[in-house]
């Protein structure tokens, strides 16, 4: 670059600086490392997605993005910390269906408002829920399974990762949609729930894709339906619940980035642009798909819309199933 162009640029920069202080904030952002709060322990599925994205985000912003695991109380502790953090763009959080929809809808003690306390930036990934059966269960598809449950109401059991978890609500939604009666047996997390289904302690599990996909692929669990509106590329032969007779049925876990309310718009725009590029990157999409997730992006307005719809949808299930967490 020649000296002349450099000084021209410098003059231009000075002029712009004087004229548009906001643009400078955007240009100088970030000038120190960014903290990304993950409200779940290291090594969990949320943490894995966060770390995959954080590394690339750091490269693009020229500053390190440090993952800060603040697990506990179903993700509400870390999310509350993020809600209270300074709105300067240096604290972000990875929000999910659990932290931003289900916990606020089910817990009476959550101290943040998922819509009012945050600036949504974009989704980055979504993982479907997969309905799997123990191989000993005599049903090869969703229709047969529902018929089986209906033929002996209240006799079969399903596992969940905990009362009020997404895996619990997904099955309760199906229970209601199909007017069947299969009994909920809560476990302490996805691992033990999967073990119970593998060992035949329970007959069914509406599990998160990354947790149950390896067992489905090894034919130790029989996948019969995915909860998303579209089939999963990881299991193209498994139909969706919606196409098996329940149009509109949709349960998935989304993961997205949030900043505390009041974060400058220029900062949010920059992050939205970089994160969208990262999530749409082919290599990233492949990394997600390997684990049964898929890269998805949207706009802040769409994200607000999604949260409102889901708060309403899950709120109804929670009420109808009489789930109350304190």
């Amino acid at each position, binding site marked *: 670059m020649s000296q002349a162009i450099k000084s021209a640029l410098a003059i231009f920069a000075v002029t712009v600086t004087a004229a548009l202080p906001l643009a400078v904030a955007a240009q100088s952002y970030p000038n120190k490392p960014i903290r990304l709060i993950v409200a779940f322990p290291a090594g969990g*599925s949320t*943490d894995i997605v966060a770390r995959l994205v954080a590394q690339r985000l750091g490269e693009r912003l020229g500053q390190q993005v440090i993952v800060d695991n603040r697990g506990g*109380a179903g993700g509400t*502790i870390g999310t509350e910390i993020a809600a209270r953090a300074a709105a300067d763009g240096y604290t972000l959080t990875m929000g999910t269906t659990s932290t931003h929809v289900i916990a606020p809808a089910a817990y009476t*003690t959550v101290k943040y408002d998922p819509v009012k306390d945050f600036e949504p930036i974009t989704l980055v990934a979504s993982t479907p829920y997969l309905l799997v059966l123990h191989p000993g269960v005599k049903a090869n598809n969703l229709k047969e399974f529902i018929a089986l449950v209906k033929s002996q109401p209240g006799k079969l059991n399903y596992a969940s990762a905990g009362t009020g978890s997404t895996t619990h609500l997904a099955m309760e939604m199906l229970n209601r949609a199909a007017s069947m009666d299969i009994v909920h047996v809560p*476990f302490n997390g996805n691992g033990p729930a999967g073990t119970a289904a593998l060992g035949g*302690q329970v007959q069914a599990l509406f599990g998160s894709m990354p947790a149950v996909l*390896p067992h489905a*692929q090894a034919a130790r669990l029989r996948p019969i339906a995915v909860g998303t509106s579209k089939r999963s590329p990881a299991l193209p032969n498994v139909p969706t619940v919606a196409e098996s007779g329940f149009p509109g049925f949709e349960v998935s876990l989304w993961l997205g980035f949030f900043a505390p309310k009041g974060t400058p718009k220029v900062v949010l725009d920059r992050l939205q642009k970089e994160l969208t590029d990262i999530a749409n990157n082919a290599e990233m999409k492949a990394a997600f798909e390997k*684990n049964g997730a898929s890269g998805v992006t949207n706009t802040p307005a769409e994200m607000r819309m999604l949260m409102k719809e889901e708060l309403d949808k899950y709120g109804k299930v929670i009420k109808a199933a009489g789930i109350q967490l304190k």
Partner: protein
Amino acid sequence: MEELFANLSLGFETAVSLQNLTYCFIGVFVGTLVGVLPGIGPLAAIAMLLPATFNLPPVGALIMLAGIYYGTQYGGSTTAILVNLPGESASVVTCMDGHAMAKNGRAGPALAIAAVGSFFAGTVGTILIAVFGPPLAEVALKFGAPEYFSLMTMGLIASAVLASGSMLKAIAMIFLGLIFGIVGTDVNSGMSRFTFGASGLADGLSFVVVAMGLFGFGEILSNLEKGEEASSRDLLNAKLTHLYPTWEDMKLSAGAILRGTAIGAFFGTLPGAGPTISAFSAYALEKKVAKNPEQFGKGAIQGVAGPESANNAAAQCAFIPTLTLGIPGSGTMALMLGALTIQGIAPGPQVMTQRPELFWGLIASMWIGNAMLVILNLPLVGLWVKLLRVPYRLLFPAILTFMAIGVYSVNNLDLDIYLTVFFGLMGYVFLKLKCEPAPLILAFVLGPLMEENLRRALLISRGDPLVFFTRPISATFLILTILLLIVMILPAVRKKREVAYQEPPAA
């Protein structure tokens, strides 16, 4: 058999590369260093060090994490013996006789026997994984809620044996432990119990908080009371006769190591409280078969050798369900699976066939790691023992500082530090009242699992309690429990009374 050798040679080929040996050494070394810091157990250490492995190749990352895992496990025993600080629930048992040995000036033999026992158990564990991994994993799947409940019941009854003093006090401590275990969110209903609105209590009291408080903090408080001179005398006056175990020690320990290893290998494959249950059961067994049961709690070397071997065998066998089925048996194993996922490997039964170099490389590295641990730690015994000569006015503040950092690092919650102080005061009161905290800790760890599985079993059986007796594995545990009760109540009561009469009360 031939296939096994082919597999093992593939494993050693992978593990013995200079690069992987280095990763293994770094893991074991860092693990030991972090493990001797009070309050930092394997789970916290791996959570902290996990990101450091993200940029390594998959095999290297896993080998290093496994090294950190047994390093911290072993480091935890070191602090248990030297300063009465158990790094994780299984080391609580080591505290009892290990620290008593240190007080008698036999910290060296205690540390050395822990290292030797761990190495032997680790070797057996590695062989078991290599030969019987997949079939053993299937056993884990046979364990449902009724089996777990009966197993926990047996463990809890056995914990009464742990107490060397009054049986009544031990039972009171067990109940107290059960009550502390209730704190937190109830798995079945999702309701909070005894959390007083604090979100930091929603996941229950952390083990580290309770153990650090009752053991380490309580011990320090009671030492302060004695004044520096008197308390230093405790550890120093009893002259260090031997740095390493005598021939007599080895003879006493050999059987304990064998029995401990067998117990650990059995319980380790079961997802859940494997290492803890094994360590406690091994201790109870040693106390039963020993010719000198009255020495237990006062520095019996079998009380260190048995549980330490059991703990390490179990820690090794915990890899079986994790690697062959993709089922994490503990929080630490869940982290290991997370590490695999980050490396782009979907954990599950297919890992063994799709990535044989990874599976067998890890197994070979387990043995190498255990060997490195023993080579690293035997010379360090002298150094650790010298550490005890640091005057208490320097040692205690240092321990308290590290303890606070360790406790905080588990959940990044300051509430945990205050809670540790609370349990510390409680530990001091218990020492004054001669109530032993070990049964409390075991009940605290097993209680929630027992309740959870009792309610789950009854939920699945639709309220029919017969389910505990009609399932063979569960029935076996319950019969063993009853036998244990009979064996314990009849002669033990008589024997204990005699012992109590003959011996002056322990200090």
